[in-house]
């Protein structure tokens, strides 16, 4: 299996810096996701790895080999394109067999071997029996599977997936997401996955790299990214967040009290880093699902807040409410069995251990 390493990679298109000094390493056998909004440079990064683009700065390594200037057809990566890029003039079988036929001489394959391997991979993606169809006869989900099979059959050292599920409908997307994860784990191929869908990214990845405006902001496991974002953009992009400007007032060891002017209240016992301690103004991020409703009669307890429900939306698995507090508001999720109505006053607890403090107050650096 192959490790992929990018070192200070920069790609410039005319006036735009598409990828800005990006460095990361993908472990062998890992499913690594590049996540970010459209135009953030994630697809360009993937195309650099595939060899369709060359960076103006920096290097790309597969294991210890510098592949920056290796032609795409010598890299042994296999890419699944966003629009699948199935050749409409070839049958499913011919599409899938294409890569093997190219490698026929090198791998000393006979037509029989090819047939066998194509059949195996079609079984793997559950497409047995569709060999003789043309791509345009297939449904979106089936086309997706053909594209995946075509990439997998050559046993690539790196599998590259460029928003592979974005053209599928919601239900199919979840099904295919599981499928991809299952196959990737089974084969253990180093995989780089590009998506703008954070839920897709979190559910499928071993590690995620969040990109914005060409820069790689943070990378780590889905949990790390979700619970310990280090950049305001990451906190805002992943999951839903209430973001306030706060002030660090009292520091005790690793814990601090932050004052939020908009809510006119303090949150005590929040874990903070050294960098946060040195800042005067910080961002305070509260995830809506971490907030807990409490009985109005609970009496004295730290980090209790009172607010009036402004808007309540029943979402099925939860109720999303916007609660007015002081001069501001906060989005809070409430269990779906409760019945709330606008104007109602509620009391809730913000757990300090789930409150995130970030040492920047704007999205810019």
């Amino acid at each position, binding site marked *: 299996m192959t490790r992929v390493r990018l070192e200070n990679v920069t790609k410039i298109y005319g006036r735009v810096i598409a990828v800005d000094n990006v460095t990361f390493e993908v472990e062998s056998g890992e499913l690594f996701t590049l996540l970010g909004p459209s135009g953030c440079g994630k697809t360009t990064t993937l195309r650099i790895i595939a*060899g369709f683009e060359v960076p103006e700065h920096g290097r790309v390594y597969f294991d210890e080999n510098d592949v920056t200037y290796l032609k795409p057809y010598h890299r042994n990566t296999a890419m699944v394109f*966003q629009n699948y890029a199935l050749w409409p003039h070839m049958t499913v079988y011919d599409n899938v067999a294409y890569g093997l036929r190219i490698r026929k001489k090198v791998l000393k394959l006979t037509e029989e071997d090819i047939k066998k391997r194509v059949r195996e991979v079609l079984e793997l993606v559950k497409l047995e029996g569709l060999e003789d169809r043309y791509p345009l006869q297939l449904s979106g989900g089936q086309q997706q599977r053909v594209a995946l099979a075509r990439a997998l059959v050559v046993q690539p050292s790196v599998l590259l997936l460029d928003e592979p599920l974005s053209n599928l409908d919601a239900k199919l997307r979840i099904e295919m997401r599981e499928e991809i994860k299952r196959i990737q784990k089974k084969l253990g191929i180093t995989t780089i996955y590009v998506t703008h869908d954070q839920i897709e990214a979190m559910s499928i990845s071993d590690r995620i790299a969040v990109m914005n405006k060409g820069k790689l902001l943070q990378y780590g496991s889905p949990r790390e990214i979700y619970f310990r974002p280090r950049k305001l953009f990451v906190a805002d992009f992943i999951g839903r967040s209430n973001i306030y400007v706060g002030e660090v007032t009292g520091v005790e060891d690793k814990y601090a009290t932050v004052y939020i002017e908009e809510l006119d209240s303090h949150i005590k016992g929040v874990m903070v880093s050294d960098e946060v301690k040195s800042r005067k103004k910080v961002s305070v991020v509260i995830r809506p699902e971490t907030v807990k409703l409490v009985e109005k009669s609970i009496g004295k307890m730290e980090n209790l807040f009172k607010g009036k429900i402004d808007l309540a939306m029943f979402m099925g698995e939860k109720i999303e409410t916007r609660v007015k507090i002081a001069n501001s508001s906060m989005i809070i999720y409430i269990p779906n069995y409760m019945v709330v109505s606008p104007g109602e006053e509620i009391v809730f607890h913000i757990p300090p251990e789930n409150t995130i403090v970030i040492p920047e107050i704007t999205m810019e650096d």
Partner: protein
Amino acid sequence: MPRRTGFRHVSLKDLYIAGLVTALIYYLLAPYIEWTTEILIWVLGIVWAFLLFKSGLDYRRILFSFSMSFLAIIGFIYTFFILVLQIRGIPRALALFLLPLLTVAVLGYFKQNIIPTIKIKRLYKIHVPLKRRIKTTLYKLDPIMWFFLIGGSLVLIVFLITPVLLMLLNAFVVPPYVKDIFYNFERIFRPGSRYVRLTPPPGSSLYRFLPLKGGEKLLVITGVNYGILLNSMINAVVVTSVATVLGIIVAFILARYDFPGRTLFRILAMIPLFVTPFVNAYVIRILFGPYGPISAITDALFGWRIEIKSLAGVALAQIMAFYPIVYLNAYSSFINIDPSMEEQAENLGSKGLKLFLTVTLPLALPGIVAGSILVFIFSLEDLGAPIVFQEPNLMSYQIYSGFTTEYGIVSPELAALGFVMLFLAAMGFLAIRSYVGMRSYAMISRGGRWVIRERRLGPLGLAIVYLVLLPLILFTAMPQIGVILLAFNIIPPTGFSLQWDKATPQYFVRLFSDPAVFRYIRNTLMYATIAVVLATTVAIMIAYSVSRTKMKVITPTLDTLATIPLAIPGLVIALGYYYFFLALPNVFKPIPVIGEPLYKLLFPLSPVSGPNTFQAWIILIIAYSIRKLPFVTRSVYAGFQQVHHALEEAALNLGASRSRVIFGVVMPLIFTYILSGAIVGFIYISTEVSTSITIGGLRDDQAPMTFYMMSQYKGGTATGVQVAAAMGVLLILIQLIAILIIVLVFKQRYAFIGV
């Protein structure tokens, strides 16, 4: 955004006021001032516009407005010629009226495009080492891409740019006693010369009545001779305008209204597109002759007969031949407008003519003018009508006759004239191309297919369609119908009558039985076949390079070069090739050892090598493939565009080499595009006129069909007129078969789309 300055907003109204005042000052003072003082008025217009611009005039309005950007582009060309030709009076006042608008357009262009680029370069200062930059560029190119890129560019440089440059160079060749190198141009642009005659000769008028034998009167419409250069320009502008209006009307009715027989109308409206060089103009001459059918009608109605000849005849023949080009472009523009655009306007209360003028026409305009500019170029370079109507006072005729009269020696003045023609055509073309490019966002819409807006016609509408539109369409199809009647001897070669009893296929038999005639047919078919193969090869190389590389300067230049032959009049190519092949053998002569044999080998390509040694066919084939290259390239390019780049990348990614991708994945996908491009090329090549009768005329046993047809119609003598008409029918058949193949076999739209 308009800025508040002093006490009010500056708006476009101020621009018009500035123009109006400047124009008025000029008009009032013109009789009393010299051109040195006049410069002050020009400066006034420019400074005024500059001040308006500085005080925050919204220059973007000009860019984004469909009509104003068009006006600005036409205005530049107009003003240029007003100045060069030293035309005064109201036309010059009009130029001054446009001056502030043009100034603001230029300033806006600089502010929008040039300054930001400079600024951003300074701001970013992204330093990429040269070595790395070269490496990055080279990485993208595989050997086959290199071959395509260099091969394609080389062909265009050698056979397109060099000849045209040589022609330009020869335009500056002056007699030894003249010091001024612009001598040839001055001869053309000097007012009062035979090129520019601002006051037409006394007694000349657009039309006059002449008495005929037997007391009848004859209305002769000739057109006024303003000199060769102005005639060509006026003729081209008139033909383009009338063809455009006619094309828009016919296209709109056929695209948007439903009535019985509409499909038939559509087919009939395409008939003039069948190119039958010379014969169709000849038929028009017969139709509008003093004893033709039109005269019979006017005689019965008004008591006088009519004859249209000279410049008026040329204009008429060109309008009838070229208006379907606008019609086709306008038609596809109208059906490509997202109906929701018009529905929204209706929804807000707009209807009828208002709706058409405010929404429909502006949205369709880019597509329409793309066709109009082709008409303009075709009209400038057309030889068929001027030769048949024996009108020498046109640029095209002058260049042509320069080839025929002084055998072997083409005068430098002709080269200068060729350059002026090229300038007119290319300026118009590039201007329209950039205009259409700017406007292409107009068609961005929600995508998907939509139902075309169609109306049923009421009784009044039906009456108009059947009583006005049908006769009009039938009328414009007359020349082609006439060609067939002439070929079968139903119409006699002179005079006019319909003699069904004398119909005979004997002229068709002669086409193939008479070796002196069949030679021309064989030549055309042979040349067209070879030229198409060459053109298609070059087209594939260029189209692939252009669609798949994104190199600064090189890619866009190649793209423009591959399209520009559309804008280069055939006569310019003929002149360029004349000079090119004149010089070619001598270039190699000084080289030691191989020089002498090469000279001997290439000498037969020189037009002065003698009537029996000159190998015109090689030059014709090269000229054909370069001239008609854009039509082939466009189709092939459309094919490459259809193939999403991911389809290629997927194959590269799986380990296929570039050549394997091109020939294994891409070519099979776009095979039909390549073939239909080749067929379109074949049509245009087999009907080519300009180089055929000039270069071909230098060696008439190697000349193609169109040369033979020209020679039969030139003097209006009746010798081989009907054999040539039969040839015309043969050409119609070739075109018909080719179009049917494209439409029925390849299921592609056959369109004569410009730009």
